């Protein structure tokens, strides 16, 4: 797939265990754009990320998600990834006995398709260069996938996977949580290095801090399972200065969490 990617989310409603979390989300992300979804805890941000990737715990009850005109909701998780969707997870799983490098090579080859496998030596050379750019110790290539990694190491490893797989649309779910300033700067540099017209980015965070390092073109605020306000970079600055309360007052929202509306 070449050209400028396009992710179009329309009227998305998502439930978990019969409880509705997302209550109609509309969002349009194109290649070259950086979107940030902000909002306090418990408003549905991470649900949006997991549901887009197709986590089995989440049930989509209504709406549509299209990636480059293809119906994402009709795809299995692995098909979504091969179509160019990527999710950097808030809590990446640990898989014992599977080396980081082998895992990424399998993933990359699955994405490239049969007959297009990357030569092993080239893969390892590229991987080492990418790890270097993220200040990761070369030995992490042979370590078991995320096993015994610190929180910050796991986050770097997510960004490493993103740079190896070169997705068309990436979702970063609270990539900044648990990172100190130095690690955040390195991770942000890794993300910024990906920016190009063939790459669209959707970041989920509840701290403005991240947005100082990765500048968004669009900022969306999520409350009660919906996007309640969208704007440019200046919206993040306004939130930084005034917090969420002014927005809640303006919108007449007393409790911004999803549970409050059930």
């Amino acid at each position: 797939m070449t050209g400028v990617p396009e992710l179009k989310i329309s009227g998305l409603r998502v439930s978990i265990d019969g409880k509705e979390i997302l209550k109609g989300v509309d969002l349009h992300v194109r290649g070259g754009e950086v979107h940030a979804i902000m909002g306090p805890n418990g408003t549905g941000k991470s649900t949006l990320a997991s549901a887009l990737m197709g986590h089995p715990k989440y049930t989509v009850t209504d709406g549509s998600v299209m990636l480059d005109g293809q119906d994402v909701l009709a795809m299995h998780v692995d098909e979504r990834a091969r179509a160019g969707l990527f999710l950097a997870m808030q809590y990446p799983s640990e898989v014992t006995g599977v080396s980081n490098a082998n895992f990424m090579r399998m993933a990359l080859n699955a994405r490239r398709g049969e007959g297009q496998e990357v030569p092993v030596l080239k893969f390892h050379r590229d991987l080492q260069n990418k790890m270097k750019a993220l200040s990761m110790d070369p030995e992490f290539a042979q370590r078991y996938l995320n096993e015994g990694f610190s929180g910050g190491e796991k986050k770097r490893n997510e960004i490493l996977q993103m740079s190896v797989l070169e997705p068309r649309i990436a979702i970063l779910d609270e990539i900044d949580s648990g990172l100190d300033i130095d690690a955040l700067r390195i991770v942000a540099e890794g993300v910024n290095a990906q920016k190009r017209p063939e790459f669209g980015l959707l970041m989920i965070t509840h701290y403005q801090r991240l947005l100082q390092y990765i500048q968004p073109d669009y900022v969306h605020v999520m409350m009660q399972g919906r996007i309640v306000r969208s704007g440019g970079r200046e919206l993040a600055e306004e939130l930084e200065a005034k917090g969420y309360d002014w927005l809640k007052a303006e919108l007449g929202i007393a409790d911004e969490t999803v549970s409050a509306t059930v």
Partner: protein
Amino acid sequence: MRGVTQLSGSFETYFTQQGDPDYLIEARRKAMRSYESLDIPRFEKSDLTHRNLAAFKIEAAAAGNTWQAIADPYLAQDGQSSVLVIADGQVVLKRGLEQVEANGAVFTNLRSAAVSHRKLVEKHLGTAVSYDENQLISLQTALWRDGAFIYVPSGVTLTEPLQLICVTTASGHGSFPRNLIIAEASSAVTLYDAYLAAETITDELHVGVTEVVVGPDAHVVVGSVQDFPKAATTILSRRANVGKNGRMDWVFGELSEGFTVADFGSVLQGDGSKSTSHAIAVGIGRAHIDMTARMIHIGRFSESDTMARGVMQGRSNGVYRGFTQIHKGASGSDGQQTEKLLMLSPQSRADAIPMLLIDENDVKCGHAASVGQISEDQLFYLMSRGISERDAKAMIVWGFLQPVLAEISIERMREAVTSMLERKMA
């Protein structure tokens, strides 16, 4: 008791004709009396009442040449290892055994060692696994046919692993392999043994015994794999007595499709003695696999660490017991165990049973047991990178077994076990 009466008279004649020395005939006679007086063993999670425990004969079957194709994938490449192959109870291949003799060590079959190294065999045979441990061990002690005898004198290290392959090709004769390993002070040796049978085997009783004597500061590694078809009933007892500062490492892969009850481990007699075990069980079809890793601490500052991984598929049933016993006086001892079992199908069953019996205050003990299915989050994580569900599951299962597979140091054997696993998990 089925078949017992007619055995008593004839079996002494048979083994005398086979050339067994008197002391061995006497030991067999004693064991046979025990077999006749004991009841069928009752194992907590393994009911033997519906197994055909009479699927044996006194006489070994004639060894044909079908063993070759079965043993071949496991055989170390020429020159790499000293190899002993026993088919249907008889030695069919000895290769490179003389290279261990250069150091004064011995690697031969136990039947011939019973004559050529009479003092050693007479002194140690039956010391780690008692003839009356249960009725089937009694039968084994009476009827064992052959196996490996390894003797390593003080201070000698055998750097190349030794290899034993036992193959059963004929049904209904019973498989009774028996091994004795004696490692004197400050010596070291590694044995890799494989117990295999033709797919065509119908009824078979398989009782195996391995005894290891680990001298002071000696180090013995025994890595075993077993693959018997579904009509086999297997009872195993493998045990080491470990002397002061000695070390015993067990690696065990149980891949049989039949009914298996395996008990293995070490008696840590000496102060500062140590033992580890790494076990894999893979159940397919209706396999029943009941394993106990047994560590008995007697010496002070003795240490044990057991790790087991099991993967149950189809309608298989896995029971894994970690048994750590610390006797009074074994102060400063440390016993650790981890059991993890994975169920891959809704009809499979798995139990992990940690058992700690502690009669001493000043000790460290730990256990971790888990039984479960492939984690939804792990699967989601791998699939979210574009890996198919099938490949993702395979990666998780292989990764799960990897810590134990990594313990097998003969490359050819590791490859054989890996390809056997691939076949079983296809």
